[in-house]
């Protein structure tokens, strides 16, 4: 048994950067901000590669909608992590773009692939992005592809006699376990359980041989934005921190105990 795994992902500003909104809305100096592959989409990619390695004959592709120049920078790093094919789409990718048209562009790119076997198709992605954080794109992609077996906030998938046994996060710090008869399915990943793979320069060089031509030919998409923003602002609350340096551990513990019990 083998799978056709397609991971949908976008870019996000490096989480250590200071973000400030400007009218539009957009981020101040947005094009100058260093970007990373969206963290949850990255987890989906690591899990996809792990699954593909377990199931010989599986194929792993990544559909990514982002400004081409930034995508190229980020892929220089991601390409070193694991082998995959990139299907780039050149378009806006920020927290203020609209999820509906974004999902339309991603689903359109998947449908346009000439050699996708839908009966083996698993569509992976992050359950939310670090930008818009809506957690809606994957379900919309699945719906547009006609896939009605969908799973959100997935932390684990195991293949058991051709079926997929899936753990999804639910309320109360629990996992819900489901058994899906097999592909096609959409899995929107939470963090999974795999760490970030180490860089492997040879893999990077092999990946970039196909990625660079693909990036040069990336189709430009301009998803319509159906949202009217009235205001976007930074939170106004700034705490005045009391820094306590001169108390003993016992005194601090007493103060904390009183505070905890209040």
């Amino acid at each position, binding site marked *: 048994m083998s799978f056709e795994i397609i991971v949908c992902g976008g870019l996000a500003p490096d989480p250590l950067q200071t973000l400030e909104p400007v009218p539009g809305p957009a981020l101040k100096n947005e094009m100058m901000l260093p970007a990373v592959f969206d963290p949850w989409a990255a987890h989906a990619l690591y899990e996809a590669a792990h699954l593909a390695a377990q199931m010989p004959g599986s194929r792993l592709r990544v559909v990514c909608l982002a400004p081409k120049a930034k995508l190229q920078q980020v892929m220089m790093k991601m390409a070193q992590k694991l082998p995959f094919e990139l299907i780039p789409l050149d378009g806006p990718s920020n927290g203020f773009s609209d999820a509906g048209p974004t999902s339309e562009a991603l689903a359109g790119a998947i449908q346009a692939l000439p050699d996708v076997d839908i009966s083996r198709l698993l569509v992976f992605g992050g359950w939310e992005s670090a930008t818009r954080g809506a957690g809606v794109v994957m379900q919309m992609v699945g719906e547009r592809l006609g896939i009605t077996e969908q799973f959100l906030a997935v932390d684990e998938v195991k293949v058991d006699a051709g079926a997929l046994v899936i753990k999804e996060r639910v309320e109360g710090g629990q996992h819900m376990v489901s058994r899906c008869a097999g592909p096609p399915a959409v899995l929107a990943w939470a963090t999974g359980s795999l760490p970030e793979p180490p860089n492997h320069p040879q893999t990077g060089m092999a990946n970039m041989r196909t990625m660079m031509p693909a990036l040069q030919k990336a189709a430009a998409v301009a998803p319509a934005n159906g*949202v009217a923003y009235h205001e976007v602002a930074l939170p106004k609350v700034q705490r005045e921190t009391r820094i306590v340096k001169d108390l003993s551990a016992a005194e601090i513990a007493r103060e904390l105990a009183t505070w905890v019990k209040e």
Partner: protein
Amino acid sequence: MEKILVLVHTDEGGVLPRAALETVAAARSLTGDFTIGVFGEKAGASIGSLAVEGEAFSAPRYATDAAACEAIVRKAGATLVLAPNTFRMARCLPGVAARLNGAVDTHAVAVSHDTEAVTVTRWFYRQRMEGTLAREARPWFILIEPGAYEAAEASLAAAVEVLPVEATTRTTHVGYVSPESGEQTIRPDARLLFVAGAGWTKKQADGAVHTDEAGELILGFVRTAQSSLGSSKSLVDLSGEGQTVLPFLTHLHQVGQTGSTPRHRKGLATCCHGEEPHVVGWRFINERRAVNLDPNCGWARGKADVLYVADAFEVMRELNRLI
């Protein structure tokens, strides 16, 4: 004039989640009447005048839940659909919005309706900025973040129309399991969030690491104080890489940019530097205190109310004795 539908689900045993009643409160804050639709186990004996129930719709599964929601929204002819942002709704409603050519916004912390338009307030970039927006597309699905409204009281519906819905799925619901660590992560009802940072696994003043004692101190406090247990990404990553550091911590404990954003009245961070990617997960923690040896850490820069510059091992030993 908007036709408003409050769309909620029942949990096991036909119980309504608290977030469902909070969504009713959100709908009452808007002008105009609204219809309530319920799906799930014993939905016909709940607060909704429209219901989809039956064995196929008891367990949370995308295909069946989406079919139920689609039927209720079509029957109600709703232009505005308010729903709780539970995992079950978050899984199925975006797909239903796509199916009905509508739009969807999640994690809404406020919804209002003035003379011009309905607006939704939500956070962007992992709670780093807040925005208010409106849309023209209808039906517009708005998922209300749990905790954003006080739960309303709602009585059982006087008359219920149970809609006949057929749905097929290749997925079977197996059940629920707790994290393998056996330790509670986020307790929705806890008043306190306790966060353990990477400092617990570093060399201490005597030049050695004391992870066993760190584990005892952390778990001792969490169990006694009945608090939620969270962690920073760096500490979770260390345990994910197989190192023998605080093995009870998993990605489920992670708070911040790639973790959860829990709602608690108080939060206590220990051995954690308070970097921005972690602190964005503290957006809904009202009172914040931190214990850290570095007086210039992130918590000192307006992110905590009180920063105790002290050795967390010593403080927690004393604190565990006192509580």
